[in-house]
């Protein structure tokens, strides 16, 4: 009995799967008509239950009329359909859906908590040990912030931090400007041109860092550029652009282009439209992109390692050399501060992109 049931279920499902693809194709054409009905049908249960009689009725009549009017493709609406309407809201969504699903996949919640613990316990340990008062990095000798004081007065650390900040700020500003221009201009290129350009720009994300590092070193040696700030900043700008560009592009896709058209119809010039309309609307994307560019530049070790000289040691390079000498309490402090930077940047950019979602 149960076996029978299951095979039947299987058959039904496979039928549906096969029928899926032509349906998806035609769905695109019918999207406009469907959008009207689906908003009424798939809305939240309470809402659709309240407004159901009137709105569904109207939508249904509208659909029938539209189908009849545009039905020169052979769609004939039978008479009996005109008076019909669904007797239930077209949704299977029920309260407590998430609980229902969890019961059916019992392990994923447990595994997820474990994975999150795996991600955060090491960081928590670093933060914890950064408040250790002892001279030993791993021997707990009471709470103290003395190593924070030591780090803030260590000239080598301050110099490395300053170099990193100079490079990161310059790379952030440059890459934000370049990425903004790129995102706003890429629409006007042909399909092939824009694909080539985006492939070129995103390539620095896909190439293994070690290869890009040695290759950039060979390249600047070949063109006769001396290692130091200039190649560092240019190389950092190059690999920051894809990270900066992503949130800006995502933000641009959510904007209503009719704002720009309205501005131009009201007599704004091309530049005025960009300056007064596009830029303010893109601001959350620009800020979150710039923050990401800053973090990516601050974090880079591999590529900088091949481009620096003695005078331009960046913070990650300095930490790496400290770590190779062995664990040390001041590394805990720097690591905690860098962790704090990541947290701040992630939270700020998440808030910025989240606000976009709620406004829309």
């Amino acid at each position, binding site marked *: 009995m149960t076996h029978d049931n299951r095979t039947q279920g299987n058959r039904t499902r496979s039928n549906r799967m096969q029928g899926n693809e032509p349906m998806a194709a035609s769905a695109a054409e019918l999207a406009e008509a469907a959008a009207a009905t689906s908003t009424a049908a798939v809305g939240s249960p309470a809402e659709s239950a309240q407004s159901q009689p009137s709105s569904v009725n109207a939508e249904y009549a509208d659909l029938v009329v539209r189908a009849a009017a545009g039905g020169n493709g052979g769609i004939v609406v039978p008479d009996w359909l005109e008076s019909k309407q669904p007797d239930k809201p077209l949704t299977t969504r029920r309260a407590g859906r*998430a609980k229902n699903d969890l019961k*059916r996949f019992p392990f994923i919640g447990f595994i997820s908590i474990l994975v999150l613990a795996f991600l955060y316990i090491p960081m928590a340990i*670093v933060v914890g*040990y950064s408040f250790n008062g002892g001279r030993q990095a791993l021997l707990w000798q009471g709470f103290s912030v003395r190593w924070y004081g030591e780090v803030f007065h260590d000239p080598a650390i301050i110099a490395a931090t300053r170099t990193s900040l100079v490079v990161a700020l310059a790379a952030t500003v440059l890459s934000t400007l370049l990425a903004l221009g790129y995102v706003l201009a890429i629409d006007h290129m042909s399909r092939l041109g824009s694909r080539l350009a985006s492939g070129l*720009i995103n390539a620095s994300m896909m190439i293994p860092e070690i*290869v890009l590092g040695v290759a950039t070193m060979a390249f600047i040696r070949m063109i006769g550029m001396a290692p130091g700030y200039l190649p560092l900043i240019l190389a950092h700008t190059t690999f920051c652009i894809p990270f900066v560009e992503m949130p800006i592009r995502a933000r641009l896709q959510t904007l209503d282009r009719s704002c720009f058209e309205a501005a131009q119809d009201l007599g704004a010039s091309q530049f005025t439209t960009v300056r007064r309309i596009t830029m303010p609307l893109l601001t959350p994307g620009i800020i979150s992109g710039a923050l990401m560019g800053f973090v990516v530049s601050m974090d880079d070790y591999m590529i900088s390692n091949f481009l620096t000289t003695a005078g331009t040691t960046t913070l990650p390079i300095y*930490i790496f050399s400290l770590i190779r000498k062995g664990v040390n309490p001041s590394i805990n402090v720097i690591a905690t501060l860098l962790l704090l930077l990541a947290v701040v940047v992630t939270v700020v950019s998440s808030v910025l992109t989240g606000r976009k979602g709620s406004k829309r």
Partner: protein
Amino acid sequence: MMSDSKPPTMAIDGRDNSDNVINSASGTDSAAVMTAAAAATSGLSRSQKLQNPQESQESRESQKSQKPQKPPWYKRMFGADRKVKPGMLHRIWALPSIVLGLMFTLGPVCVIVAFSFMSRPDVGGGVKYQFSLDGYKKLLFREDFFGNSYFDGRYLQVFWTSLWMALVTTAVCVALAFPIALWISMRSAKAQRILVMLVTIPFWTNLIVRTYAWMLILNDNGPINQFTQRLGMGAHELLYTPVASLIGLIYTFLPFAVLPMYSALAGFDFRLVEAAYDLGATRGVVMRRIILRAARPGIASGIALCLIPAFGAYVQPVLLGGGRVLMVGNLISSQFSEARNWPFGSAISTVILVITLLAALIASAVGNRSARKAGIAS
């Protein structure tokens, strides 16, 4: 699209018309020009209303006949024949990024490929501009003192180690990332945002900091060893082992696997799962035929995002493996620093680049195909 752009084109037609009038009157004196222009502009609204269809058609035809030949391919490729859309910038603004990309991405790649075919100078680093295949030969063969060459598997072994480590890392990351991605995508919208943020924070944390955290944990005096000693099981050497560098790799690349998988599942309609259960599907069937099907593009890009950088990893094997595990990244780095054999280092880099390119192409092909199957791609 067409209906949107109609009003502006009509306005342009009108302006073109008045220009024509001015141009035709340019032979006579300026007063006549002024009056003609004034007449053209003042009469424009009326005449436009009366004979708009004809006029606009004519002027459109005249515009067509003005440029009958297509612009050359290089102009078309960069979209020279397109008008700037409102609120956007002229295509020239994309140029700086592209030039920088050409200089600092394509340039270095070309140089490294070129260097791999050159020969080694007698002393020091760098290359001698003389064609040779020594770099590639060294990958597979070893020459003894008398010039006889033998097959040498040492460097292949390094490649194999790297590939093995990268594969294990990717497998573990994908296996751990799938449940959490699924779990996050089933939460409420607000919880999803917070959980994604939690996964993203390690992603943006300094790579060296993350690796250092594991050095603390696995250290001889670290928490794990303190714990086992207290239990009376004694201390174990955990740091500077292959397992330690594997843990570091997994820890580093886990967010790289979670995020694309989550974004593939985020828009997933879980009513399909309900429907499947209602139709009598078992848990395994739902997982295999519905959820995994939707997650497949995310899994493909997750694999690519883990496998490629893990293959070229450098920091984790050095800090956690303690040099006992030699991966390709360490080999390249040593060729450019201590060993000073640039052509050989370039040859290894070129091989990695080719492997990366192939992997990226396969991943994007698989991703596209499965996205199309799942009905996600346009």
